[in-house]
């Protein structure tokens, strides 16, 4: 009897709800990133900005789930993981398209960003990738130093709000650098783009510590990139049949 009830609940849960995003905690304490990122900025960034993106995305998905337009297709899309929803923005009606691009993008980007940060190393020079990831960076950019220089320059020069990304390009299968405006994510442009590392360049990401001095934030960012995590993300990338 109990088993039947449990199975019924599971069945109802599977069929009857849209994706509901939750707020993953930071992998470390709010203070752990000091002095590169202060406890105060981490609380604001995680508990306010990230939280708001999550709430707004959930609200849009909830509305989409009960929307009968497009012969039930909206309901189906609303049940997908957020990464999949963001690859299908172009089919969504206006009222959901921007809401999900902005807030769903904001959710995904921040979930990713917080997962690749760690306590700062004493210096920038001592914090580097190794193994396959380093080899792939060298293949695309010549040396790690050159990559560092290009990534930093792109970050300092980005105008307005946006991100700079290191990702495996869907078409060439090589690591590339690119920027996106606002909360756009590379998968929005090709579902097979595979993000490996990124930096948040919205002013809220650095203003409480660095004020207008974005270059100083970018310089210090290299001390908090968790190359172990990033290396693992790279290793776990889907391997194309053509590579085998």
């Amino acid at each position, binding site marked *: 009897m109990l088993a039947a009830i449990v199975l019924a609940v599971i069945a109802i849960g599977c069929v009857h709800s849209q994706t509901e995003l939750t707020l993953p905690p930071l992998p470390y304490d709010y203070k752990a990133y000091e002095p590169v990122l202060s406890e105060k900025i981490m609380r*604001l960034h995680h508990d*306010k*900005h990230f939280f*708001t993106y999550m709430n707004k995305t959930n609200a849009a998905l909830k509305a989409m789930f009960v929307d009968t337009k497009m012969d039930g297709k909206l309901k189906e899309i609303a049940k997908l993981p957020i990464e999949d929803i963001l690859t299908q923005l172009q089919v969504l009606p206006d009222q959901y398209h*921007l809401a999900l691009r*902005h807030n769903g993008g904001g959710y995904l980007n921040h979930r990713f960003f917080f997962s690749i940060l760690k306590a700062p190393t004493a210096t920038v020079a001592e914090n580097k990738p190794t193994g396959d990831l380093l080899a792939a960076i060298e293949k695309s950019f010549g040396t790690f130093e050159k990559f560092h220089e290009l990534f930093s320059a792109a970050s300092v020069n980005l*105008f*307005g*709000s*946006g991100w700079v990304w290191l990702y495996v390009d869907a078409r060439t299968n090589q690591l590339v650098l690119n920027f996106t*405006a*606002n*909360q756009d994510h590379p998968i929005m442009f090709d579902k097979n783009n595979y993000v490996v590392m990124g930096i948040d360049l*919205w*002013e*809220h990401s650095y*203003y*409480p510590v660095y*004020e*207008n001095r974005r270059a100083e934030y970018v310089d210090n960012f290299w001390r908090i990139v968790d190359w172990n995590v990033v290396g693992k993300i790279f290793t776990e990338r889907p391997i194309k049949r053509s590579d085998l």
Partner: protein
Amino acid sequence: MFIRICFLAIIISCIQAQIELTLPALPYAYDALEPVLSEHLMQLHHDKHLQTYTTGANKLLKRMYDDENSSNELKGLTNQSIEFILSHIQYLPEIYQVGLKQYGGGYLNHKLFFSTLQKPTATADENKPTGPLLKAIEKAFDSFDKFKQIFTDVSLEVFGSGWVWLYIDAYTKELNYSFASNQENPIMFNKNHITLLGIDLWEHAYYPVYENRRSEYVDNFWRIINWPFVSQLYTEGVAKQTDDIDKETDGIVKHTGGCPMHAGI
């Protein structure tokens, strides 16, 4: 007589290099807008952000002037006011358009913004426009309160960095509002739009005081608008929107081509 004035303008343009923008002083002390905008925020916003736009715009204008590929017309354009350059942005080569929209726009927008602010009133409700500007707002939006609601709502909806603007529309001659991303300004879309008032929605404009709470910033913004000054801009703007002015400025653009003083530079 008019033709002589035009030729004089041309000769003067020939001798001068590109315009050099200077950092306009705040029309009030840094702490004058407390508690709505703190002294520290005003110092950052004016001395750092506006300074950066000033320096960046000047670098671009100099580069455009020094560029051996720049036509005489283009060089002549660099000597005009920043308002003129930005309202004719489509004449610029693409490589300069992007940068000037960013840094030239940043310069113009902040110069205007700071000039339209004043010491806060105790409440938002007591701070209102009067006279012809109020009539124009009522004509375009039904009432000042409706205008305030729309402007506030749009300000909260703007995603990323940008502005919300109140301007005199070139075609209707009536007031209109628009939102712009990054440092865009209505004059970049039509040289005859007259920008009257804007709210800076880049995070740097409010973060040191309001952190993520943009709605609190927007609510308090209504306490610091200098309506008498904005009214003045409105009156001047309405007077400016005549066909004669268009001919005059177009003349300057056409005649700086083939300027003999630039030969060999």
